[in-house]
């Protein structure tokens, strides 16, 4: 299995950057998810790694070998397409053994490898059908089989579950995760679905506006977003973000609220903020409604999510809405005044001008 390295890789269309120069190392056996909204450059990045798209700058290394200008067929990578890209005029069997035949793998060896893969993905009964008569899930299994049968150095997947129904997506996600664990293959996976990214990735690369916003483990990007974009984009709903003003260990928030900043954050805030303007951030599950909470708000609305309820609180006027996750039996009438606390471990601070998260230890 291979290590993939991107060094200052960029893609320009005319003057427009589809991908701004980026550095990224994907370690051998790692499952890395490129996550971002549509048009953020994640698919372009994946296609540049595959060689389907030429770079306009930088270098790509596969196991230390410079493959920047090699044809896709010379890179030893497999690509799973969003819309499967199966050969419509061939049977499932011919589709799966196509890469082996293209490489002139001896027949006996090819048969053996095909039957292994087919058994692993449980598609033996489909071998003599054509892709046109398969369901979406089965097509994706065939596409995965075609990618796996080659035993490539790395797998690239471009929203492989994007064309499937929601419930099928869940089960295929589990299948892909299991395939990755059993094969331990270096995988780069593109998606715009943050739940998918969280569920699958060893590391998540959050992209937006043609550049990397943050690289980190799922819990890092969730609990320690590097900037406002990541804070908003990850989680549904995203992080609660409220503008305030910091002075002497207190953040003054709308609705005459005063938030006492935890001790460990005071020094970084005092150092980093020039005029005291700050954005305070916390996840809905990091807030707790209690009778003697430090912050006061009133219930704006609430909705049920099955396993829990989400209460929307207005802090001051209705332009500052805070989402708080509560147990599923907790309900409030509209406009009930409530008080809540923020878990000191779950609170984050952002500089409104740079939009970056403040770090404990001084540096941004």
């Amino acid at each position: 299995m291979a290590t993939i390295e991107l060094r200052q890789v960029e893609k320009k269309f005319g003057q427009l950057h589809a991908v701004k120069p980026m550095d990224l190392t994907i370690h051998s056996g790692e499952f890395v998810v490129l996550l971002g909204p549509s048009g953020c450059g994640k698919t372009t990045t994946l296609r540049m790694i595959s060689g389907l798209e030429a770079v306009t700058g930088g270098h790509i290394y596969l196991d230390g070998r410079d493959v920047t200008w090699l044809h896709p067929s010379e890179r030893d990578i497999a690509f799973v397409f969003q819309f499967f890209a199966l050969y419509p005029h061939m049977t499932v069997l011919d589709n799966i053994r196509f890469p082996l035949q293209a490489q002139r793998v001896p027949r006996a060896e090819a048969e053996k490898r095909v039957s292994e893969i087919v058994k692993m993905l449980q598609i033996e009964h489909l071998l003599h059908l054509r892709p046109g008569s398969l369901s979406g899930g089965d097509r994706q299994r065939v596409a995965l089989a075609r990618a796996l049968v080659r035993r490539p150095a790395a797998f690239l997947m471009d929203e492989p579950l994007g064309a499937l129904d929601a419930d099928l997506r869940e089960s295929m996600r589990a299948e892909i995760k299991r395939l990755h664990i059993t094969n331990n293959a270096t995988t780069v996976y593109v998606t715009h679905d943050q739940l998918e990214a969280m569920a699958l990735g060893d590391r998540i690369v959050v992209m937006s506006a043609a550049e990397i916003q943050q690289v980190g483990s799922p819990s890092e990007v969730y609990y320690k977003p590097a900037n406002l974009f990541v804070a908003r984009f990850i989680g549904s709903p995203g992080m609660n973000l409220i503008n305030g003003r910091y002075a002497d260990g207190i953040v003054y928030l709308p609705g005459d609220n005063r938030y006492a900043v935890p001790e460990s954050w005071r020094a970084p805030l005092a150092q980093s903020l020039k005029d005291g303007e700050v954005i305070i951030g916390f996840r809905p599950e990091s807030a707790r409604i209690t009778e003697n909470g430090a912050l006061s708000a009133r219930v704006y609305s609430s909705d049920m999510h099955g396993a829990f309820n989400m209460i929307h609180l207005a802090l001051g006027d209705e332009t500052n809405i805070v989402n708080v996750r509560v147990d599923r039996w907790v309900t409030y009438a509209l406009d009930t005044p409530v008080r809540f606390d923020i878990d000191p471990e779950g609170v984050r601070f952002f500089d409104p001008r740079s939009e970056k998260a403040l770090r404990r230890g001084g540096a941004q």
Partner: protein
Amino acid sequence: MTATTALQAEKVAQRRQVRRISDKTIQTAFILPTMMLLILWNIFPLFYSLYLSFTEYSVITGTPPRWVGFENYRNILSDPLIWKYFALTGRFALLSVGLQTIIGFVMAMIVRAKFRGSGFITTLILIPMMLSPVVVGKFWAMIYNPTFGPLNYLLGMPPPRGPDWLANPQFALWAVVLVDVWMWSPFVMLLCLSGLKAIPEYLYEAAAIDRASAWFQFWRITLPQVAPLLMIAILFRTIEAFKQFDVVMGLTGGGPGDATELVAVKLYRIAFLGRFDTGIASAFAYIVLIIIVAISNLYIRYLNRLRGEA
């Protein structure tokens, strides 16, 4: 909802009353003239010529058709000369359709790549197809002409050295084939091109990822994907080759001797020259028809198999 539909129904009924004729009548009124013409010009002659094929009859003698049963068929099928013409036509079809398929396909592969002026070049290539076959025949006869035709000049054999292509029994069929290929390769190209353009790009991307060479991609993706349209082109051209008449008449008139006497030319000769053997000509026409239908059926069966697979 119900009220509006009721209202609409009433309106329709009112209109009908004004018109006093049903939709069915109108349908019939529109279709009838076409049906009449079709019966008059197509269906009736088809069956009348079938009847005539079993008679001894000539349109110019004025004597009524005399029933002779299968004698016309027996005579034609036992005539070695007729078989020779069929063989000649088969050879012509094989050569011209074969060359058209290869040349048309190659041209389509070239024009498929988008380059500066490819649209204009495609249009230029299509021009021969738009000309009248007789005009094409007459012009090529001039090009082939050994005394003033440009072909021999271009081949570096100015008169009197160059051969007379159309008067030489060895070359005449090839000369006709060449003109047919010149005229109809664009047709094959056009169909192939539409087939090629319909192949989704992602199949080639997938093949590149699967490490298929260009040659492997051509055999396993391009050709199978274009095959149905290529088969349609071949079917059309084969039928046309068996009916080939006007280009031959423009070029050689079937000569020299009977070197380019294709069945359609022979048929014309039986029916409209000499004794005007209408009965024999009808029988002959039916034999040609049956052969064309049989060949077409083979193609269509193959085509359906291709389609079923796709």
